[in-house]
């Protein structure tokens, strides 16, 4: 290998290599971007569960929801009260590490609609951004945007269903926190009393944390066997309901992108072959003036390798640009099990507009790099076979 020769052949003749470099760059960019995107989408889709530190969220749809009166405090359509039996049965599963319960309520107040979440769930308490989480029966916390809209602040009083509460804190809902999103937060028993003075243990949301992460789907199935009418949100159900296509893509993502890489490699081998064909004459001259086969081989091999590495490098740059752009594009991941009254949409807490958490996946770059090395070696080997066959006297005969 000789640097003078390499520089001359590589840089003064970059145009003949540009296709190889671009093809490889695009293939690598696609491979890395596609896998990163899918992965990012998954992570985002799973944020709702992650941010409330639960593996399963259980609720129960109402059977006769639309007939009930749309006034005052009432249950959401999709959150009926669990029975004692349901709760005690669920609690018996040994896989469960921790259960947190909540009561989600709708308050229809003079045409205004707001959601109330009563819970003592520590994770939700930790969402307090200013002030403190309410603990007495006359205290509440408000979701930040909601408070801002009504120009309410800590210490102000707030009326719900004729009862006066004082605001002790503001809550900032974590990205993707829709599984525990509400306008107003309060301790569980405050909400229970608000709902009905004689109800003792009303709950319509259960947050389950398991001992073993990977058993979530199994537990979900087990619970559904006993109570088929329950709605259980798990990571799989979020993915299936909101990003069906992505789930399929994820299953095949490695396959698809590997196929792309292989396809690109085939093209690259072809273009490299072509460039060797173009250079047969040069190689013949080199041999005629005394270059040994080994010298020619190592020269051409190095050229091929540098071409491949350049392609890989350019591909990674492309990928970084794409990731940078994608990181600004918000995506929607919805919990489709939620049904809201049509008038309500304005005040349901902003839950969309998440952006994908794109992180640089070193592993994918490593794969791409290894693939590049392989392509370099494979094309190099094929090219070397061709080089060996070039006879200088025959090349020189052609003018």
């Amino acid at each position, binding site marked *: 290998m000789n640097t*003078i020769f390499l520089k*001359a052949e590589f840089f003064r*003749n970059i145009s003949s290599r540009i296709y190889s470099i671009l093809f490889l760059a695009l293939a690598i960019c696609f491979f890395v971007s596609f896998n990163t995107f899918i992965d990012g989408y998954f992570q985002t889709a799973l944020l709702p569960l992650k941010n409330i530190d639960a593996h399963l969220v259980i609720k129960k749809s109402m059977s006769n929801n639309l007939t009930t009166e749309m006034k005052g405090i009432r249950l959401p359509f999709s959150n009926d009260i669990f029975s004692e039996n349901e709760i005690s049965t669920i609690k018996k599963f040994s896989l469960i590490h921790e259960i947190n319960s909540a009561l989600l309520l709708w308050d229809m107040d003079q045409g205004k609609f707001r959601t109330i979440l009563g819970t003592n769930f520590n994770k939700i308490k930790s969402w307090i951004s200013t002030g403190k989480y309410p603990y007495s029966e006359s205290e509440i916390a408000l979701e930040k945007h909601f408070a801002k809209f009504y120009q309410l602040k800590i210490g102000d009083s707030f009326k719900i269903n004729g009862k006066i509460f004082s605001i002790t804190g503001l809550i900032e809902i974590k990205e993707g926190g829709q599984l525990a999103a509400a306008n107003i937060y309060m301790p569980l028993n405050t909400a229970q009393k608000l709902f009905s003075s004689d109800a003792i243990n009303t709950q319509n949301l259960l947050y389950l944390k398991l001992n073993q992460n990977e058993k979530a789907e199994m537990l979900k199935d087990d619970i559904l066997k006993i109570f088929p009418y329950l709605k259980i949100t798990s990571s799989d159900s979020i993915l299936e309901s909101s990003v069906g296509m992505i789930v399929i893509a994820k299953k095949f993502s490695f396959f698809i992108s590997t196929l792309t890489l292989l396809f690109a490699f085939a093209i690259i081998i072809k273009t490299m072959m072509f460039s060797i064909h173009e250079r047969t004459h040069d190689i013949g001259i080199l041999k005629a*003036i*005394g270059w040994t086969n080994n010298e020619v081989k190592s020269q051409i091999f190095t050229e091929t390798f540098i071409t491949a590495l350049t392609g890989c490098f350019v591909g990674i740059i492309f990928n970084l640009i794409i990731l940078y752009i994608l990181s600004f594009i918000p995506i929607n991941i919805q919990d489709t099990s939620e049904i809201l009254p049509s008038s309500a949409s304005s005040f349901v807490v902003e839950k969309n507009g998440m952006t994908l958490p794109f992180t640089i996946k070193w592993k994918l770059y490593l794969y791409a790099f290894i693939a590049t090395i392989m392509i370099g070696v494979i094309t190099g080997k094929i090219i070397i076979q061709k080089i060996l066959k070039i006879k200088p006297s025959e090349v020189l005969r052609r003018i």
Partner: protein
Amino acid sequence: MNENNKYILEAENINKHFEGLHIIKDVSLKIKSGEFVVIHGKSGSGKTTLLSLLSGLEKADTGSIILNKNNINNQTEEELAKTRRQQFGFVFQSFNLLSNLTAIENVMLPLLPITKDISNLKNSSLDIMKYIGIDHRKDHLPSKLSGGEKQRVAISRALINNPQILFADEPTGNLDSTTGKAVIDLFLRLKNERKLTIILVTHDQEIVKLADSVIEIKDGEIVC
């Protein structure tokens, strides 16, 4: 000089076939050191083939080619490459410069893979180019050079390894007569000043007149 090392290159009964055709027929010849030898003959007579055999670019089917008492026709491909690099210089009709290399890089080319001290190689290349009168074009790519200039670069390249024998196949074939004559003058100068052995293929009668000895070839056989 005794009888033995008077001859720098000898061919003994060499034969070459291509696709069943007998192209070089039992050729024997002896070339004296420091001579300007011309191989002359009609088109298709086998001049280029003979030159390729003598210079180790091609192997004879039978016979031997003795260079300094070694039969190079027995050498492997790698050994032949080394022989060409160490002992021979080549000049072709169509110049055969590498289009992506500058003039001086082309001159350095034969020795590039085996040279550690590149700046030294650069200096000796420049010296040769000065001697040949082409140093002012050293940084130009071949596409920017005239035919005569290209051939001077090619001749410089052929001399970089300080060869014993310079092989030239119709070196003036692509040049106009004035430029061609200047190139031949250059060869004569190399012979006289550097005692270089030159084996040159041509069908130009004018060049034949300048030769120390002439190998006339007809249908693959030497006729005189």
